[in-house]
């Protein structure tokens, strides 16, 4: 298997190419632009489409069109761009169109800055656009996972006919790591039963409008059933040194890398602490987090690059059995391991 040193953003495009993504439609924005640039370099070499759209809105609607034609298709952006894409995403979800969106989160609100943040959590994980819908959300914490989870995002998007996000941040997008390049997919799913291919056999209809109230309610209920199935079958998370842990730190994406170091450093000082890392944010690993107290966890600290978004879901999952403590930094600041260790020491009175 080939190993390459590459940026997280680049690895996501490798994942897309390997997954058989036929088209990329995007608009430049820091810190996601390398995704468009890598797609512009690689896609035409394989006769696939790269198009720099006139705006974020156009790009997500181009995704809607290509997905409606049954093609694997991707776009990428960052906070302000994702806000603009929400209309199209609601349509993709409402029309049950599989597509992949990479969000390389930056600082907000407004123009904010281009430093890393995880403040798009709510707008991505909770829907973001209008209507009752969910998108599948995968949160890589390495360049390797940028590649692997992008491939998985395509697979899950097709499996459930639903948009799938790769929710990452400026750190993961911009850093380089060694990546083991997986094998390209050998075949793509047949979508003739619903896709529009411009032939006599697939005179299908892609739409999200249901005038009759009962019809729209029934459609919403079908979507809900799908989301329940996703919640049942697609939960992904990782635990590190949790076996005998009394304390758990919870974080995803780049912060989970810092937390891994936090756990190692604290363990060296004899603190029984472990890391719980959600990999899928929708579906959220609710029951795994709910079971933490019964597994001997006495304290939970959620750390994220926001003023508190993931922590709400952690607390919903904990259901009052424990209340998670919280530590967040924003504005492009990433807390160091020693900063977090200091917080743990202060909160729980442990010597680190």
């Amino acid at each position, binding site marked *: *298997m*080939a*190993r*390459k*040193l590459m940026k997280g953003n680049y690895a996501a495009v490798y994942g897309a190419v390997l997954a*058989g993504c*036929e*088209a990329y*439609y995007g608009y430049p924005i*820091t810190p996601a632009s390398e995704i468009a640039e890598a797609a512009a370099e*690689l896609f035409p070499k*394989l*006769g*696939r*489409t790269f*198009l720099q759209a*006139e*705006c974020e*809105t*156009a*790009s997500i*609607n*181009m995704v*809607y*069109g*290509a997905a*409606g034609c*049954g093609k694997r298709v991707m776009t990428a952006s960052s906070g302000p761009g994702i806000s603009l894409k929400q209309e199209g995403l609601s*349509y993709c979800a409402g029309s049950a169109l599989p597509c992949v969106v990479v969000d390389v989160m930056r600082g907000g609100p407004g123009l904010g*800055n281009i430093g890393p943040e995880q403040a798009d959590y709510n707008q991505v994980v909770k829907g973001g656009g209008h209507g009752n819908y969910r998108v599948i959300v995968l949160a890589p914490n390495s360049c390797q996972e940028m590649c692997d989870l992008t491939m998985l995002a395509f697979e899950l998007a097709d499996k459930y006919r639903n948009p799938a996000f790769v929710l990452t941040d400026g*750190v993961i997008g*911009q*850093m*380089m*790591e*060694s990546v*083991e*390049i997986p094998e*390209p997919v050998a075949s793509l799913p047949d979508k003739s039963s619903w896709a*529009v*291919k*411009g*032939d*006599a056999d*697939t*005179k*299908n*209809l*892609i*739409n*999200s*409008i249901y005038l009759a109230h009962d019809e729209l309610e029934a459609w919403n209920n079908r979507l809900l059933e799908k989301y329940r199935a996703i919640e049942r079958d697609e939960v992904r998370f990782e635990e590190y040194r949790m076996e005998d842990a009394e304390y758990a730190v919870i974080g995803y994406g*780049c912060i989970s*890398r*810092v937390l*891994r*170091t936090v756990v190692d450093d604290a363990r060296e000082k004899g603190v029984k602490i472990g890391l719980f890392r959600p990999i899928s944010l929708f579906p959220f690993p609710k029951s795994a987090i709910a079971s933490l107290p019964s597994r001997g966890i006495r304290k939970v600290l959620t750390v994220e690059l926001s003023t508190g978004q993931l922590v709400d879901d952690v607390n919903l999952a904990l259901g009052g059995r424990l209340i998670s403590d919280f530590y967040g930094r924003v504005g492009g600041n990433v807390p*160091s*391991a*020693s900063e977090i260790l200091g917080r743990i020491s202060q909160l729980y009175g442990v010597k680190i």
Partner: protein
Amino acid sequence: MKGAVLRKPGGFNDIYKHKPGADKDRTHYCPGCGHGILHKLIAEALEDLEITDRTIVISPVGCSVFAYYYFNTGNLQVPHGRAPAVATSVSRANPGSVVISYQGDGDLAAIGGNHILQAANRGENITVFFVNNAIYGMTGGQMAPTTLEGMKTTTTPYGRNPATDGYPMKVAEMLNSLYAPTFIARTSLHDIANIRKTRAAVRKALQYNMEKKGFSIVEVLSMCPSNWKLGAVESQNWIRDHMLEVYPLGTLRDRGAEVAPRVRPRPELDPARVRETLGLGEGSGVKLERPKETPVYPNPSVRIAGFGGQGVLSAGVVLANLGLEYGYNVSWLPSYGPEMRGGTANCSVKIQDGTIGDTEATKPHVLIALNRPSMEKFEPIVASGGTLIYNSTLIDVTPSRKDIRVLAVPITGLADELGNTKVQSMVAAGAFAAATGLFALDDIIRLLPSLYSGEAIVKLNEKAVKAGFDFVRGIKS
């Protein structure tokens, strides 16, 4: 005997199965609405040109939101104004199909104004049928960009006032200012002669679409009796008496004869070709044997810092690449963004056998400081027992830490002696290799051709690496 009877054209569905309720054999349009006439002209053309089976119609938001009820084609209903964007990707996904974007004036000229301009400017191989009835129909008679001056609508109850509401937007003329479009025409439905002209324009636009000749649009002046609050015939007369003056009819552009058909490539999905294109499969990752000598730091974390433009980030990339070639797990974390374009820049590199946690070198074993602010900022965080390599050409103070090894290397000076300060990064890489024993000099030199192109550049970098390496080895001995 098709020519001997004029009946519901084959481009239409027999029964409108997607239409809710019992009325599945009648349109949802109001009596006298122009949409139905244009639908009929399109459906007839689809049948006559024998393209019904390979046509895809994009239905917009507006009264024609339900165009998909009627056309016996592939159909996508799309968000308000976005039809040209969707049509763009649909036509690229299915290059063999005929893609129609059917839009009203609010959809095309207001909320989707940029999309139509850009799709036209790209010369997308799509046909746009643009219904201009100077008003919003579906939402109940509000002002459109094409509403006439003085015209009363529900949102211009005192008449459209150009001073506050702007002027009627001339879409065909606007698009005609672009180079790419192939065919631009404005027609009208206000009498049979003009309906027949519209029929001809529809056919021509679709003909060019079939021939892959790029972007075609027909703007059609059309009746909206309900919102104009006029009868059907009065509405036709209103077009004649009021709209024609503002929106002159005719073919504004016909470049069909000179435009070459646009051929789209076929997407390549064969795994072998994909592997080849991505440069995979040329052996395993580990290409170099690690040096015999035990490195000073077995799993080093490194911080490199300096001015933007000093090669700080690329020095880190070189170290990470070397680590990769030796079979380590490596990470490279840059400061990114505007910092790269002028101010200070720094990067963290980790080279480890195990899993890398935090990728930021918060307690680096090695700090390479290329300027004074960087040294002052990062000297305090160097791990005890670590190494500080500082650029003695530019840094005129001595580091104060006593618990670390300090190596003064004139990095900029050594590069300058080679005639190019751009190779500071390679001088630094050489100094790092010598200071840590992690990389062999020969291995770095062997790797250079894969990092740089051009023999002279490779040679220059080789000299730079050697200069840095030899200088540090000179200090050590």
